[in-house]
């Protein structure tokens, strides 16, 4: 087959190509740019079955029809992205399939340690199973055996494609179709890896599932794909956190996360995002265009999103819930901090379809320096959603006089029995508050951190314990130097 020959040739080319590496870990990378050959290359690298390749190609061909039509409605400014100037595949080289952590490159483990990611015993002690993603390929999975015994599937996405094709085929793209939006379509074509989770019927997953994402390769767009399915009556709490090293080029990140909750199931998805935000002048930093959506497909199901967004030069992210099942519940708790030249346009969509569906939105936006912070949310109540209820609270805190906070709530109600509430406040840290804290011996930065943490408390409280502590520190660190 011509296509296969083409792929083989591409692989050969790449293996001969020499790059300067950011770390000593040898990577094999796809050639620069994006075309059908690259997609076949990625698929071949991962040894994917034909159906997976076909799905990617379908997405890619659709993406071409979008002709660089990035969504333009967000309150964001950035230069046009040249999608041909990125590498779409980079993986730490591995010799053979790994069966234990001992086989993981010690340098890689060292990098994790520097990041403060306790991959080894600490994780086991903490009861956290980690599917660590270094660049694009998952290299180590802990606690897998125990989870397996319980019937939980927690695996790199690429592995799930091989081992659980029926589940992947059934649910992939069922919440975020490949044609959903520009970035999701791009992701569908070129995603390299991510996590796959399946919680069997009736199981309350006894440990938090956690994935750390990390961008390390220069110019590598990151296209993670996560799919979580909570079968009837099950529960899972999933943590996602990420850090990235400082660099000058803007990096594109376009992840897709799909959640499916069946009857009486509950998914709690928590994110702490602190990617490189760029320097004080807005140079560098990650472009974060993420599509996250959960479907409360079953009755009495619940999906809860909590996000703490402090990093990235640009954040474009609207973790949403489709409340299909009767009595299903969607919740969104968000802290978004922007300082210097950061821009965030983030919020949620709560789509009420089933009867007596309920949603709650609590958004805390903090803006400092020359940053812009926008809450953009949609509450849509369908004609059949009798008794649906929504409560939305959007609070903005401004630090200094050169930043912006914007609240753009959309409410579309097609059912007269539904009730929606919206509250919004905008405030500034007062001189009196600062002086009071400083009179008690706190430095200016400590005072700001304390006050901002108080402002965010309602959201931070929804995070799992160890994540909450990290997030509190992060809130303080993110605003260092923003008051003066």
């Amino acid at each position, binding site marked *: 087959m011509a296509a296969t020959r083409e792929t083989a040739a591409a692989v050969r080319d790449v293996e001969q190509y020499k790059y300067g590496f950011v770390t000593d870990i040898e990577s094999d990378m796809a050639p620069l740019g994006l075309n059908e050959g690259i997609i076949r290359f990625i698929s071949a690298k991962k040894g994917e079955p034909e159906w997976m390749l076909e799905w990617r190609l379908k997405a890619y061909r659709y993406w071409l029809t979008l002709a660089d039509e990035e969504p333009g409605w967000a309150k964001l400014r950035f230069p046009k992205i040249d999608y041909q100037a990125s590498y779409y595949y980079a993986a730490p080289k591995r010799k053979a399939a790994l069966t234990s952590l001992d086989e993981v490159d010690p340098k890689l483990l060292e990098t994790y340690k520097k990041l403060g990611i306790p991959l080894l015993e600490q994780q086991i002690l903490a009861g956290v199973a980690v599917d660590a993603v270094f660049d694009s390929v998952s290299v180590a999975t802990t606690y897998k055996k125990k989870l397996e015994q319980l019937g939980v599937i927690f695996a790199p996405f690429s592995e799930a494609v091989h081992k659980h094709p029926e589940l992947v085929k059934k649910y992939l793209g069922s919440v975020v179709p490949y044609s959903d939006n520009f970035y999701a379509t791009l992701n569908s074509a070129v995603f390299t890896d991510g996590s796959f989770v399946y919680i069997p019927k009736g199981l309350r997953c006894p440990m938090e599932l956690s994935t750390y994402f990390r961008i390390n390769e220069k110019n590598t767009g990151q296209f993670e794909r996560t799919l979580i399915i909570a079968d009837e009556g099950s529960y899972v709490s999933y943590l996602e956190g990420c850090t990235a090293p400082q660099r000058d080029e803007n990096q594109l990140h376009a992840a897709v996360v799909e959640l499916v909750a069946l009857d009486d199931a509950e998914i709690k998805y928590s994110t702490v995002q602190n990617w490189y935000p760029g320097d004080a002048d807005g140079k560098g930093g990650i472009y974060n265009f993420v599509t996250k959506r959960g479907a409360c497909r079953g009755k009495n199901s619940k999906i809860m999103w909590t996000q703490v967004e402090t990093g990235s030069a640009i954040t474009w992210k609207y973790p949403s819930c489709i409340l299909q099942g009767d009595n299903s519940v969607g919740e969104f708790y968000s802290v978004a901090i922007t300082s210097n030249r950061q821009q965030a346009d983030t919020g949620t969509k709560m789509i009420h379809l089933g009867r007596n569906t309920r949603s709650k939105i609590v958004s805390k936006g903090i803006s400092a320096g020359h940053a812009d912070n926008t809450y953009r949310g949609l509450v849509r109540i369908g004609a059949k959603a009798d008794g649906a209820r929504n409560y939305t609270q959007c609070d903005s805190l401004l630090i200094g006089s050169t930043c912006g906070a914007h609240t753009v709530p959309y409410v579309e109600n097609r059912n007269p029995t539904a009730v929606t509430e919206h509250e919004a406040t905008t405030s500034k840290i007062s001189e009196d508050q600062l002086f009071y*804290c*400083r*009179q008690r011996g706190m*430095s200016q930065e*400590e005072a700001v951190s304390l006050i901002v943490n108080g*402002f965010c*408390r*309602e959201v931070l409280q929804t995070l799992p314990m160890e994540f909450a502590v990290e997030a509190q520190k992060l809130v303080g660190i993110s605003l260092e130097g923003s008051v003066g």
Partner: protein
Amino acid sequence: MALLEIKNLHASVAGKEILKGITLSVEPGAVHAIMGPNGTGKSTLSNVIAGREGYDVTQGEVLLDGKNVLAMSPDERARAGIFLAFQYPVEIPGVTTSAFLKTALNAKRRAEGKTEVDAMEFLKLVKAKTAALGMPYDMIKRALNVGFSGGEKKRAEVLQMTLLEPRLAILDETDSGLDIDALKVVSDGVNALRAPDRAFLVITHYQRLLDYIVPDHVHVLAHGRIAASGGKDLALELEAEGYAKYLDTAA
């Protein structure tokens, strides 16, 4: 050496001179009361010592243990041992009293080169202090000063003072808005803190507070200057005769 030395202090707010040459020496272990009618600069004096923005010191010196206080930032002053009990304690939404106290205490401990207290030690300490002050322990779980009654706010100030163990405590109209029971609780807390190496500057309009916190020295502030100084009897005299004579002479 005096603990606090104020020499010929002049300060103005928005170009208007409020303090017109204050000289005051406070020895360790002493309680000085500063009395006077409203608008004579009592609060200005406490704010200038604590380092609040918006006050311009045009002349004079403030020394704590011989060190130039006016060159320090507000938090440096606090860590050096100056504590201001606010007339109107500030609400900090979402920040529990407990979190606030712990942050403040650890800031001080770091400055002193001590290790920070961990959560367990801290709670033990607060439990002991609240019990000693006759305060409900649950108060520390509430957001600082948010929805506190006047009495609760002042008690929270005394609790902070008790934990931070300052060298110099300035009580700015602490009696304002307090009923007699709250006044007693607050005064008991202050009296328990009296120590040979600690001094108090009690700023008040009324003599009533001084029935509970008995001063060693009383000063009358009028028109930005100390118009008279004396022992605790001076306060009683003021109560009987009012401030009129100081205002007249100073005018």
